[in-house]
């Protein structure tokens, strides 16, 4: 009597809807998650100024003064320039006096962030092209493909010397 029952096959589970369930999960994940990776310009700020700090003596002719006024006009050492010209100027200065030059950035309080960002980008581009050139000459490959050690050597050879003055209320400090 029991034997007879065991002989019967177990009825198969109906799995047709598993596909629908997993589809729903998939769509849920597609909606709630985002693929976009955060991209941007990575910068290192200077530590906050100490009270007992002595102002450094820098030769005035090695300082490049980059300013942005309230109409987003870019000037470099008092002369109006475009972003491309700024890149070339910074490149020329950094190539000659690598360790001594300073790029001093000053932006007005009402400058738009976009203008500031593009200015930063133009400056970074200048250093980027110098480093790329060095990497090609000395290691025979792109800067991006150098090892971390080689990269830090290149960075030491062409350091980014950018100083940002704090913005004072009402214009120029």
């Amino acid at each position: 009597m029991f034997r007879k029952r065991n002989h019967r096959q177990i009825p198969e589970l109906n799995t047709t809807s598993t596909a629908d369930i997993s589809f729903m999960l998939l769509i849920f994940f597609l909606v709630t998650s985002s693929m976009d990776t955060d991209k941007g310009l990575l910068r290192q700020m200077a530590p906050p100024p100490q009270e007992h700090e002595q102002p450094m003596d820098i030769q005035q002719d090695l300082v490049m003064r980059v300013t942005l006024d309230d109409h987003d006009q870019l000037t470099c050492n008092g002369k109006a320039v475009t972003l491309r010209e700024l890149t070339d100027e910074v490149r020329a200065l950094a190539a000659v006096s690598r360790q001594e030059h300073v790029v001093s950035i000053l932006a007005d309080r009402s400058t738009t962030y976009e203008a500031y960002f593009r200015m930063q980008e133009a400056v970074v581009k200048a250093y980027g092209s110098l480093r790329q050139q060095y990497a090609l000459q000395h290691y025979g490959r792109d800067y991006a493909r150098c090892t971390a050690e080689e990269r830090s050597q290149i960075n030491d050879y062409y350091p980014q010397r950018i100083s940002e003055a704090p913005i004072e209320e009402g214009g120029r400090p």
Partner: protein
Amino acid sequence: MRPMRSLFRSRRPGGVPSLNMASMPDLIFTVLFFFMIVTHMRSDEVKVRLEVPRGSEVQKLAARQSVVNIYIGRKDGQWSVQLNGELVSPETIPARIEQLRAKMGPESAERLTVSLRADKQTPMGLVSDVKRALQKVYALRINYSATESKTDSYHE
């Protein structure tokens, strides 16, 4: 003609055979797992309206667990600052960064990076206030967030 037809009929007795769908769930599960791995959940709701600038020199930001997001944008016509999930004023940023740093592991606290997502039209005064607040708590690594544009067209 007639005998031919009957011959075809006899060859196909049951119509179109049904496709075997047994592997369908497995397939979809594979796609699901792929998406679960490559994407990340949107962690915080952005309460301000903003459009980040476009740039060509941008690089990817790694180490997601040590990143603090600051959004600067318009909210009801006013410029406001949002840190991770909530609206803050620039003066309270140092204290909040300290809190976040305490929650992190020592390794990621050291590599703490602030991703600054500011609207194109933000006045630099506000951005500079935020930057000075970050400087105070030694959160010195900043990422000026931007969307990548391959073309150089805006460079005049």
